[in-house]
Structures are given as structure tokens and as C-alpha cells.
């Protein structure tokens, strides 16, 4: 036994065989499960958008989505219009929520005008404008669905992340952080300013809604800076559209 497995030829054959077996197995598993995974992601987008406009099952402390079984129906009920904004053109498209924001950002770098999806939701006779945005945290991507009124005052927000540190940056999708954004004005005296995740803003209870700041999470400085940068640069792109709503 010792001799056989020590031979170079055996070693090489074993390596090739192993790679083939494992590669086939993984490729098979990935393509077999892909439809399920894609469906889960699609439902999650609907849940996220609904969450931002306040259609959720939050209890006292925790952020809870509507169930995946109810999501498609509620999405139809509450989302009145889905828009694609491209430059000065605004088009309706009921598949706009499937637009890949990451891909659009890459396109924009290559000089192709970016498609900006915007969802118009209506709840209790109030209109919500929900924008999906994406940015960088400490380790990987962070993204958000931001629900605003027509004056760009935030009405609700859902943050998520790919791989921020558990217990620190990962807490951006907890209510104590997300709820702070509700009521914050993205503008300051009519000029777009964004909202900064600020350390030491002396307002931990977040009572001042016009300071363009929310209280940061301790130990998550870079994630917080990423959120600030994302809100500022991405939501600014939507400003021209909101200007047209004033007329």
C-alpha cells in the first residue's frame, strides 16, 4: 500500500480524479439549486422594499419581514408604480425591482448612462418613493432600500450587508440603527446633503431630525463611513427626479 500511493503517477492521477469528482459534484449542486436560490433572492428584494415603506412584522425589538408566502401579493398591493429613471427619461416597468444595482454601477463607470430604479408605494394614502442603493462597507458590499417622501425626508430604511463583522458592523440591519434614520431630512435648507453616520454627534437618542446625522455604532467606524458615503453619492442621483415632483 505504501509504495503504491507514494508513486508520482498515482499522486497525479489521484489529484486529477479528485478535482474531476469534486468539480462535477459542486457544478451539479450549484446548477441544481440555482432556481431555488434565485427565487429566494427575488422574494427577499420584495420583502426589503416592503420593509422600507413600513410594511413589515416588526415586534418591539426585532426587524421582521412579511413572510415569503405573502410577499408577492403584498408587493402587488402596496407598490403602485415601478420606475426606471435614465437621465431625463422616466419609464414604467413592473420588473424594475429586478435591476441589478451593482451592474448598473459598473455600467456607469464604463460611460453607459445608469438606470435608476425607483418604486412608488402607497400606504394609508401616503406615497413612498423607495430607492435601492449599494456601497462599500469594511469587508464587502453594503446596500439599502431607502423610502422617502417627495421632499426627500426619509420615511423608512432597510440596510443589509454581505460580510460585515458580526456584533459590530453587522448590526446595521438591526432596528436600533435603522429606526434612527426615520424622519431624517436628506436635504439641509433645500440643498442635498445626505445623512452622515456620525460619532460624537451628542444626539444618541436622535431627537434632532434636521442635523443630517445619526448616531454611529461603536466599533463599526468603517461600515458607518461606508453607509454615509453610499447615502450621499447614490441618493444624490435621484435628486433631479424629486425636483420634478415639485411642479
Amino acid at each position, binding site marked *: 500500500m505504501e509504495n503504491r500511493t507514494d508513486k508520482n503517477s498515482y499522486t497525479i492521477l489521484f489529484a486529477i480524479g479528485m478535482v474531476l469528482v469534486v468539480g462535477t459534484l*459542486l457544478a451539479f449542486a450549484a446548477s441544481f439549486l440555482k432556481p*431555488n436560490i434565485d427565487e429566494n433572492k427575488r422574494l427577499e428584494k420584495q420583502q426589503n422594499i416592503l420593509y422600507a415603506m413600513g410594511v413589515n412584522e416588526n415586534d418591539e425589538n*426585532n426587524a421582521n419581514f412579511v413572510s415569503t408566502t405573502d410577499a408577492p401579493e403584498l408587493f402587488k398591493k402596496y407598490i403602485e408604480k415601478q420606475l426606471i429613471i435614465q437621465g431625463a427619461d422616466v419609464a414604467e416597468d413592473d420588473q424594475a425591482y429586478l435591476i441589478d444595482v451593482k451592474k448598473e454601477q459598473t455600467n456607469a463607470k464604463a460611460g453607459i448612462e445608469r438606470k435608476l430604479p425607483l418604486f412608488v408605494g402607497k400606504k394609508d394614502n401616503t406615497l413612498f418613493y423607495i430607492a435601492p442603493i449599494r456601497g462599500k462597507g469594511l469587508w464587502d458590499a453594503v446596500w439599502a432600500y431607502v423610502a422617502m417622501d417627495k421632499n426627500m425626508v426619509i420615511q423608512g430604511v432597510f440596510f443589509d450587508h454581505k460580510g460585515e463583522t*458580526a456584533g459590530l458592523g453587522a448590526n446595521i440591519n438591526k432596528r436600533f440603527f435603522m429606526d434612527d434614520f426615520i424622519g431624517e431630512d436628506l436635504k439641509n435648507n433645500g440643498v442635498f446633503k445626505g445623512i452622515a453616520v456620525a460619532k460624537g454627534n451628542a444626539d444618541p437618542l436622535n431627537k434632532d431630525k434636521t442635523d443630517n446625522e445619526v448616531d454611529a455604532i461603536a466599533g463599526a467606524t468603517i461600515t458607518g463611513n461606508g453607509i454615509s458615503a453610499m447615502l450621499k453619492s447614490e441618493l444624490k442621483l435621484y435628486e433631479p427626479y424629486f425636483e420634478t415632483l415639485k411642479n
Partner: protein
Amino acid sequence: MGLLSKKDAKLITDPLADNNPITIQVLGICSALAITAELKASLVMAISVLFVLGIGNVVISLMRNIIPSKIRIIVQLIVVAALVIIVDLVLKAFAYELSKTLSVFVGLIITNCIIMGRFEAFALGNGPWKSFLDGIGNALGYGVILIIVGFFRELLGSGTLFGIPVLGDPIAKTGLYSMGYENNGFMIMPPMALIVVGIIIWVQRSRNKALIED
């Protein structure tokens, strides 16, 4: 332990205390420091490692006579990576919420030196059943320490357990906070995990002098 012979039972109980992978062998420290800021993450990581180490040990043990010794480490690595990817895909397809909680940990499992250590030290030289028990035992030993560290870090650092406030509200100053208690922000930083692990090692060795090295 009627099901297991005395020797087999030892494979499970040994790593829980006197041969603990973290406090005695000092393996798997990186993940123990990185993810123990909250109890839930510690628990999830412990279960993930339990699963991967249990199955991985069996797979390696079954292959132990055909693995060429020159490339055994890379073969072990492929087995762990393949297992982890499959687990990740299955979770994404059927338990999406859970897979999001796991996100970072999946990658961390591959780099956990306890797994490679058990493959190399045990599974390559023992049968599948013994290897399975050894894997479970070591993963439990690892998990216990993770959960202890996570418990203290979340309690003292954030005043919560599993995300539920247990000491009152630090901002509205209720419960313990009304008496002037403050969360220790340093507890949620990785250095404090090292210190907590150090304290566990200290306690363990002062109770059992046989563990003290010269």
C-alpha cells in the same frame, strides 16, 4: 454512555475539558476571537463546525488508505472546501434566512485549524466511526468555549443575550443602568476575546494542575 464503549466515550469527553482544542491545544483561536462578540454568532459557528468536522472526519477516514501522502494536506483542504460550499448552497436554497446569518462564518470554517488538525492527527489513522466521534467531540469542545466567551462578551459588552436586552436599556437608563452601570465597549473588541480565553485557560489549569506545562 451505554451506547459507547469507554474508549469511544473518551473520544467525545476528552476534548470537552482536558484536551480542549482551544484552551489546551490552542487551535482555532482566530475564529474564536473574531466572531464571539455575540452569543448567537458563537452558537451558529459552533453548530457549523460540528457539522463540517463530523462529516469531514468520516470522509477523510474513508479515504485514508488511498490518499497519496505527498498531497494529503491539499486533499483535506478540498474536502473541507467542498463540504462547506455544498452546505452553503443547500442553505441558500432551502433556509435562506439562516444562510444570511451564516454568511461570513462559512468562509471562516475552511480556515479553522481545528478541522485540518483533526483530519491530519486523527482521521488519517483511524476508522470512520472513531473519527466521527473524535470530530463531534472536538467540535463540541470548541463550541463550548465559543459559547462561554460569546456569553460574557455580549452580556458585558452590549448588555444583551441573543440580542435581547437583559440588563435594561443603556440609553433610557433603566434596569441596572439606572444604578450607574455602563456597558464595557471594550468587550466587543477582539482583544477582550483573547483575554476572556486567557481567563478560561487560567481557571482550567488552576483546577487541574496536571495540565500545566513546564
